């Protein structure tokens, strides 16, 4: 399973320079809804690794990335293609709905 934990050092390489669409999960340890979405995100990373790259941002450790993308509620899921944000959704949802932003 390819699941990349992002920080300001690897963000450019892992996200902005990535050819595939990148799904980013902004989360935190203390966020109950984030914990509920974790298995869904893991499943996408496991089953769709050919078509999408799945990354996670722990907002406690990477506040600057949350600020950069104006994340104000977690879990927030953002899709980035060719360096640009192309989709965003917030909160607990089934996998099918999350995949719609890809």
């Amino acid at each position, binding site marked *: 399973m390819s699941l990349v934990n992002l920080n300001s050092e690897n963000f450019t390489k892992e996200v902005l320079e990535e050819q595939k669409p990148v799904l980013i999960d902004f989360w*935190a340890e*203390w*966020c*109950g*809804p*984030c*914990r*509920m*979405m974790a298995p869904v995100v893991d499943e996408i990373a496991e089953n769709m690794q050919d078509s999408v790259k799945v990354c996670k941002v722990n*907002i*406690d450790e990477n506040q600057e990335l*949350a600020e950069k993308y*104006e*994340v*104000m*509620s*977690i879990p*927030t899921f953002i899709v980035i293609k060719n360096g640009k944000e192309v989709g965003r959704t*917030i*909160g*607990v*949802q*089934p996998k099918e709905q999350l995949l719609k932003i890809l």
Partner: protein
Amino acid sequence: MYDVIIVGSGPAGITASIYAKRRNLSVLVISKNDSALKKTEKIENYYGFPNGITGKDLYENGIKQAQNLKIEIIEDEVVSIEYLNNFKVETVNSNYEAKSVILSTGTNRAVPKINGIKEFEGKGISYCAVCDAYFFKGKDVAVLGSGNYAIHELEQLKPIAKSVTVLTNGDKIIENRSIEANVIEKPIRSFRGDSKIEEIEFADNTKKQISGVFIAQGTATSNDLARKIGARIENNSIIVNENMETTVPNLFACGDCTGGLLQISKAIHEGAIAGLSILKK
């Protein structure tokens, strides 16, 4: 540690408590004692009452029946539920722990009708202080509400935000609670901003700069509590499976909060399933 805590003492919650108790589980019912059923004048479509029955009588009979079965019922208001390995249920007066929780507080009231609420969801409007307070570190925020639930959210925000204002939107702050915060009782016309919320416009045309507004009107409903734990909600109803279990393990919901028919018979049916399903796995 209880086997199950049931939030709400209407037909769904009390039925769930009876079925759970008969399985020898330890049961606690927490309720504000203000079921919608109590306000129903006469019920003529419920089985077994040839002359109908008032909502108040049916409600009180249910409570008596549970008490006769030695089910513990306390009058208190749940303001928060946290879930790690077990459930931690926080009320105005105390804290309780349980292996499972059944939500049965009845239906959610609609989102307050203030322009901008829907538009700024996730862009400054939040329904969960514990989840989102972090993003408002050092900023000016507000809580919309006037009861114990609003006060709970206020306390969550205070240590983090620069300032917290309570917006009652025309209501009075609940009696017997003193609030150490700026309170604005004026009705609100709209929340405004560009890509995120920036200001509140009141009905008297005055304005206030704000970075975030936390919605906490009235009592925390099943939906409010479920959302914070991370259960799925669609069209204002909590999503449950055939066992009345939400998308969070060991968190159940029954009665009006799951949508569909808002009828006693449906609440009883769902309460029975929930009471029989908890801790079965």
